[in-house]
């Protein structure tokens, strides 16, 4: 029973971390219409920033500054926001495709740095011994799991409330105006480019924070945790949830993560060993097809305000 509860806590924690990333993407795509295909890169920037700052001193790489965890998280959000702001600065005066291509490039380069800048990132072996919150409780696994879940849930709720507040604030209304009628908003003296850069940076900050929270939840990071599959999962989560809705983003993350984990467990139990890798690729094919089908038939998603379970637009 305790085992099952422990697993439930672990599952929910992982799903909520995805929910955080998806909330960041929702600010960028759902509320502002900015297409980011480099999510994995931005999450990795946050994870590595916090890991390098908070780990105890290590002989074989720069970093290990032994900062408090919270300071690492704040730094992760700030650094990722800066990277996102620069990406936006370079591309947001151009057509939206350029942003997509550039974010794709960001993910490639971050992956490259994670793999090759061994003295900073630990190379392919990554960074270990990332301090976990409430580590002194580690000898009581059940309690430890639940406290971790509590920390992650608290961060998710805080980010959710902040984003809800933001979307209702004057700032959020400008984003909405830019999305609905760009020319009218510009004629009222709002700089489309500047607001978009801000939104992209804020979304990036949330992704970076999510990356840091995940790094401290697992205690270990390596480059292969930030492959394009991650970007892809987060997109599926937002599209299932319904882009534009923060609630939808969270629900979509939990549902898609449950499907993903369930399919993984199913294929691990049913598929013979030498076919496991192939079954894993089929899992990605399924998500890709699902994404395309949603785009074709249900672009508003399932859990947003216009979804199956939401209120109808009055």
């Amino acid at each position, binding site marked *: 029973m305790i085992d099952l509860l422990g697993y439930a806590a672990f599952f929910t924690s992982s799903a909520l971390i995805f929910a955080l990333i998806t909330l960041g993407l929702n600010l960028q795509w759902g509320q502002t219409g900015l*297409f980011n295909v480099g999510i994995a890169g931005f999450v990795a920037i946050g994870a590595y920033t916090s890991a390098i700052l908070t780990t105890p001193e290590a002989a074989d790489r720069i970093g290990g500054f032994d900062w408090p965890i919270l300071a690492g998280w704040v730094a992760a959000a700030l650094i990722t926001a800066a990277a996102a702001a620069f990406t936006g600065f370079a591309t947001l005066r151009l057509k939206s*495709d350029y942003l997509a291509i550039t974010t*794709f490039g960001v993910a490639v380069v971050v992956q490259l740095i994670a793999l090759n800048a061994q003295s900073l990132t630990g190379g392919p072996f990554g960074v270990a011994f990332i301090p976990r919150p409430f580590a002194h409780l580690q000898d009581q696994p059940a309690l430890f799991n639940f406290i971790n879940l509590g920390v992650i849930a608290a961060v998710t709720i805080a980010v959710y409330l902040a984003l809800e507040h933001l979307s209702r604030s004057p700032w959020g209304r400008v984003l909405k105006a830019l999305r609905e009628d760009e020319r009218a908003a510009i004629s009222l003296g709002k700089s489309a480019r500047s607001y978009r850069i801000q939104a992209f940076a804020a979304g990036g900050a949330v992704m970076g924070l999510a990356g840091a929270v995940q790094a401290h939840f697992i205690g270990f990071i390596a480059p292969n945790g930030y492959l394009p599959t991650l970007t892809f999962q987060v997109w599926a989560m937002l599209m299932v949830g319904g882009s534009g809705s923060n609630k939808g983003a969270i629900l979509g993350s939990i549902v898609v993560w449950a499907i993903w984990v369930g399919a993984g467990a199913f294929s691990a139990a049913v598929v013979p060993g030498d076919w496991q890798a192939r079954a894993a690729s089929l899992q990605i094919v399924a998500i890709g097809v699902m994404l395309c089908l949603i*785009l074709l038939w249900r672009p508003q998603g399932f859990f947003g305000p216009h979804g199956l379970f939401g209120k109808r637009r009055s």
Partner: protein
Amino acid sequence: MNLQFIVDGLISGSLIGLGAIGITLTYAILRFSNFAHGDFMAWGAYGTLSVVAAIGALVGTTTPIGALSFGWPLILAAIIGMALTACLALALDWLLFARLRDRGQSIIVVMASFGASMALRSLLEFIFTSSPNYFSRGIQMAIPMGFGVRITPDQMVMLATTVILVTAMHLFMSRSQTGREMRAYSQNPALARVVGIDTARVVRATWIIGAALACAAGIMVGILVQIRPLMGLDLLLPMFAAAILGGIGSVPGAVLGGLIIGLSEAAAVQLIGAEWRAAIAFAILMAVLLVRPMGLFGRAER
């Protein structure tokens, strides 16, 4: 510094350039950046590999042509592979892109291409596994060309094929009726429709040309390096960078952009190390976007 990097750069640059032609045409005519273009390359290479295997099973082993690593089955298979890749692109357009394009939000089409790319790539991994395949396992002797430069017969033939394909593309775009229609449509779709240009035909031609050239580039990567499901993904960023550097819509620009990126990558391999190769395309992309976003031969975006 060893001059060998010029040969290496020209070869990888021409592969990037061939792929970038499809990207630049898709962008100029269908108005979206196709993230699945790299996967056309990989599918083309695997399709050709399968046809070669089928021919091999029917005819038995064949002798390679001259000093090359491949014989006539590969040339025949390449033509079939190009046709198959074109069919794949047309099918994907019919199933997915055309429907979303009609709704008028180009960024949704980009997203669909991203989803399709992930599905196509993983499907290749499912069918062929992620371990690399080869058209031929033989090792070719490189011929010394002087100045410390060496080139294999395969590489020479690939360079010549690229020159032929690019010249043919240029003549097609500038001389043929379809090419002129494509250019007209890319400059002003509304006006092109008014003067009676068949939009569906232009769209079809764009997919066929882009996919066939992607397949050709994929086969060349397969002959010179290896065939992997991720080969297209790895070339996607250099291809985008080449298309933007050359100026969106410009075929010569895409090829020139590809050559510049190929040569810079090869130079970077010698100067800072092979592991940073993939960052070069990104650096060039950022520089172009910050300094001259319309690229070398492009028109300003409106």
